[in-house]
């Protein structure tokens, strides 16, 4: 069944679209209790005491627990999965992160107590009677302010609020190259803080089996095995054999559901205490103040160019907000997923990057769609555009001059990565053509006649996906391997279960993986069932993030299929009385080469389970497991071109065209890939134009805590996207795939911002920070029209 490359409709959509998905909140267990989490209303406060006496007497209350109760029971803190070292070799500050804050609350939304009752209403009512004696302390929400002397301090373990001061590259070489450069372009920019806003809020149900002592956690996770490991080993001290984690249908994650969250540990622990299941579901307003946020960088960048406009050096200095605690993978985002990407698609010979990670009284910040790579791409593509502006060169031409040439692969960048393949020039030309770049100036003039400022902006990007070679990430501080596992279970009658450690929360694995298996095993896709999201079913798994499912999880499936075919060949050779070496496998049949004698996969499977006539020394059964550890990252790349119109009177932006040309390696299902790109672009355009998480600078209160104040992109904010691909294959995984999940969110912010700046260039504007809201643009336009007007 040749299905690779076909736009097969997503098989999971029927159940999703007809309301038959099975999400965590759809699950209810017998005798279930409900948890309500009491959260700090203060950004920073000492907790002098918590009086639960009145609440404990309220109707329906089963238990109320505080941080002290959990601590007294030996519950550990939430662990951090990545250790980054500072310039001086010292490890990052890694202060404790208790599931319930015991002596101090460090951000609005920090959990301080849990009320568990027969109904959710009763839990909520009783929570109102819990009296927390807070002593409010000065708070700091801005990462730059947090580093200043005299700033409020979050942790004794992190003097000056500094988590680490990391760097990569040779500062002396970069300074020398910048000094010798014909021109140095400089820019200060902010990468705005984002709230992830998955459609399904987080939820968790903890359950304890009195008969066996087994725990089960149902949770909205992108990686149930990782949660089992982290929560079992570090927080609750439950052996993996006694802990099952199920992540059923999950409605979007974008990174925010990778991490081990306090609520998972709280409900699991409480279920053990109370001997009853405990369920918690986030309210939307809780999601705003408890899901890990994204981005939040403040950066200074300098790019040196020689006389021929070749980049000679790049120097980047970033302050990255970690929030009030270290989330699971937070430290690696503004370092190894950011600094290592700063070569981009260019031949810049020397690069230096330093990142100071800072604690502030805000929700923890961690990976969000793209994770470090959008931040790297944004600064790189902004400074390249600014350079083109300063030297008066077409930004497309400046990029062409500096692209890594196609004959340079494998290409070693000065920031540790080795790109295996790519063709950035052709990709850009495809995009320029599709966007009618040459015809733009006429469109600009037409728009102006209608009072609209029209601009066009290019961004090229490269991302490191397919996370990740375990030895490499281990040497960089990861406390986990990043391989993937898969099991192919061929049943006696020939249907196949594929058990994958990847987790689908919108990506369409049930379709793509089934295509992959149907294609390789030569059976109908309907005979293939994809199983994921349950630690009791799946051998092991590292989950889905970093555009890794197909590149790593898919490769593990290929390896497991190879084992199935190898064993099947032995069985077929025995049945066909041929030498194993003469048996070929194609289209679902084992055939003796050059003959018409063959056995189908089904016949071979039946023989494996009913081994009456069977090779000596061969185990029965046809059930193979494989682990795949990638040899390198994959490097998807692309060129995105945005065209915008700004209404000069209102500052409102319309994205009138958006063209993306991407290299994702081999594509299994083009329709799913387009869907992934659409979603990524919507989020990237959202970041550029609409979304911005705002904290009150003095009080640390979250001011954009609902959809009243936090603007998400809607369909009418987006144009119809023009998409194309320019494929070069990944050279080191068996499928030649690179990954497509994050590309849109990586390329779009810079493309949109470059287009806005291009539109405003006639007024003398050279940079706009995101989100470029109508108000911000209107003020800019007013200021530049009438330098003394507006404030």
């Amino acid at each position: 069944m040749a299905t690779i490359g076909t736009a097969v409709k997503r098989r999971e959509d029927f159940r999703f679209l007809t309301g038959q998905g099975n999400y965590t909140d759809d699950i209810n267990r017998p005798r279930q209790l409900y948890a309500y989490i009491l959260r700090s209303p203060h950004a920073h406060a000492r907790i002098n005491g918590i009086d639960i006496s009145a609440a404990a007497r309220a109707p329906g209350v089963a238990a109320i627990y505080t941080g002290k109760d959990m601590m007294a029971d030996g519950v550990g803190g939430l662990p951090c999965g990545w250790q980054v070292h500072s310039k001086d070799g010292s490890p990052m500050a890694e202060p404790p992160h208790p599931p319930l804050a015991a002596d101090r609350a460090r951000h609005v939304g920090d959990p301080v107590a849990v009320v568990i009752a027969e109904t959710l209403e009763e839990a909520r009512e009783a929570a109102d009677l819990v009296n927390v004696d807070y002593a409010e302390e000065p708070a700091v929400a801005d990462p730059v302010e947090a580093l200043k002397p005299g700033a409020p301090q979050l942790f004794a373990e992190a003097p000056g609020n500094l988590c680490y001061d990391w760097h990569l590259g040779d500062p002396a070489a970069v300074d020398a190259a910048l000094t010798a450069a014909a021109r140095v372009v400089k820019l200060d920019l902010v990468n705005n803080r984002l709230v992830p806003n998955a459609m399904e809020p987080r939820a968790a149900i903890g359950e304890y089996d009195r008969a066996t002592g087994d725990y089960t956690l149902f949770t909205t996770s992108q990686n149930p095995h990782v949660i089992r490991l982290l929560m079992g080993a570090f927080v609750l001290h439950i052996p993996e054999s006694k802990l099952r984690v199920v992540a059923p249908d999950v409605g979007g994650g974008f990174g925010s559901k990778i991490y081990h969250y306090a609520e998972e540990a709280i409900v699991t622990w409480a279920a053990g205490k109370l001997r009853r299941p405990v369920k918690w579901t986030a309210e939307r307003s809780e999601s705003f103040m408890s899901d890990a946020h994204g981005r939040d960088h403040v950066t200074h960048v300098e790019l040196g160019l020689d006389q021929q406009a070749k980049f000679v050096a790049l120097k980047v200095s970033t302050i990255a907000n970690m929030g009030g605690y270290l989330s699971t993978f937070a430290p690696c985002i503004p370092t190894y997923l950011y600094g290592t990407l700063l070569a981009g698609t260019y031949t810049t010979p020397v690069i230096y990057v330093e990142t100071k990670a800072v604690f502030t009284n805000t929700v923890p910040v961690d990976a969000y769609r793209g994770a470090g790579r959008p931040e790297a791409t944004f600064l790189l593509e902004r400074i390249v555009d600014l350079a083109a502006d300063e030297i008066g060169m077409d930004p497309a031409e400046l990029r062409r001059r500096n692209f890594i040439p196609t004959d340079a692969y494998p290409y070693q960048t000065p920031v540790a990565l080795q790109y295996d393949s790519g063709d950035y020039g052709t990709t850009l030309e495809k995009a320029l053509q599709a966007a009618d770049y040459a015809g733009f100036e006429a469109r600009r003039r037409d728009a102006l006649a209608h009072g609209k400022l029209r601009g066009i902006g290019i961004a090229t990007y490269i991302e490191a996906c397919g996370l990740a070679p375990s030895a490499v990430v281990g040497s960089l501080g990861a406390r986990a391997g990043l391989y993937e596992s898969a099991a192919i279970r061929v049943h006696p009658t020939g249907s196949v279960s594929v058990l994958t450690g990847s987790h689908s929360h919108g990506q369409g694995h049930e379709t793509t993986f089934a295509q992959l298996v149907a294609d390789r095993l030569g059976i109908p896709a309907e005979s293939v069932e994809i199983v994921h999201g349950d630690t009791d079913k799946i051998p092991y798994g590292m989950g889905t993030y970093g555009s890794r499912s197909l590149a790593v999880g898919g490769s593990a499936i290929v390896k497991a299929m190879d084992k199935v075919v190898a064993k099947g060949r032995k069985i077929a050779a025995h049945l066909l009385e041929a030498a194993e070496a003469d048996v070929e496998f194609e289209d679902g049949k084992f055939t003796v080469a050059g003959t018409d004698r063959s056995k189908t996969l089904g016949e071979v499977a039946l023989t494996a389970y009913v081994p009456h006539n069977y090779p000596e020394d061969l185990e029965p059964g046809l059930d193979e497991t494989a682990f795949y550890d990638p040899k390198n990252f994959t490097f998807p790349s692309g060129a995105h071109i945005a065209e915008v119109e700004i209404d000069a009177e209102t500052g409102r932006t319309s994205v009138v065209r958006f063209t993306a040309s991407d290299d994702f390696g081999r594509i299994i299902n083009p329709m799913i890939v387009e869907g992934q790109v659409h979603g990524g672009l919507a989020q990237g355009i959202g970041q550029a134009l609409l979304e911005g998480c705002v904290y009150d600078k003095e009080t640390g209160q979250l001011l954009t805590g609902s959809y009243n104040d936090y603007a998400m992109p809607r369909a009418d904010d987006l144009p119809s996207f023009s998409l194309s691909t320019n494929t070069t294959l990944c050279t080191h995984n068996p499928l030649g795939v690179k990954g497509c999940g994050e590309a849109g969110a990586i390329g779009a912010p810079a493309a949109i911002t470059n287009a806005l700046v291009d539109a405003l260039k006639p007024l003398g504007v050279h940079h706009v920070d995101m989100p470029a809201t109508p108000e911000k643009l209107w003020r800019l336009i007013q200021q530049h029209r009438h330098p003394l007007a507006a404030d």
Partner: protein
Amino acid sequence: MEMTGEFHIPASRERVWEALNDPEILKQCIPGCETIEKVSPTEFTAKVVAKVGPVRASFGGKVNLSDLDPPKGYTISGEGSGGVAGFAKGSAKVDLDEEGAHTTLLKYAVQAHVGGKLAQIGSRLIDATSRKMAADFFERFAGAVAPAPAAEPAPQAAPTPAEPAPEPAEPSPEAAKPKDLRLPPVLWVTGLAAIVGAMLYFFTGRRVTR
């Protein structure tokens, strides 16, 4: 949030003064006020059950006085806790001007902060809600202190029972003390009205205490 306003109260300053010291009158004027207690000369607590439509919620409020300058002005700092909804706190500067024998001008300037869910869900809506709550309070208050149809005697009758002493002109430093005790409610009421108003909005649709 910042809010200023003024109200003409159809009563003498002394009458306003007395009324603001009368817990019974305050209870009548603050919607849903259950108790007001004087904890110390500069500290008061109150419990208010506020109700908007089907939503009822109980708030605890605490108020401290400072910058006492009777009878010209005072600053009052207040804090109200709405449980899981978060908190509101603020300060108000209040001035009482004698406009005539039977009119007093009360001016106030409130600064308030809200936190937790209150700040998260509707910082932008607090102004309007608070303004309305303050207006409601003063409307009731004016009604409560306005002379009854048998007007004139009332204001004079009021002081008789207790201590009519400090009424004329400059109070001595000693006399100021008892005044301090009396003034706080002005500010407190203004502040709390604003705070409660702000909180109420956010409770709508959220929690129903019965």
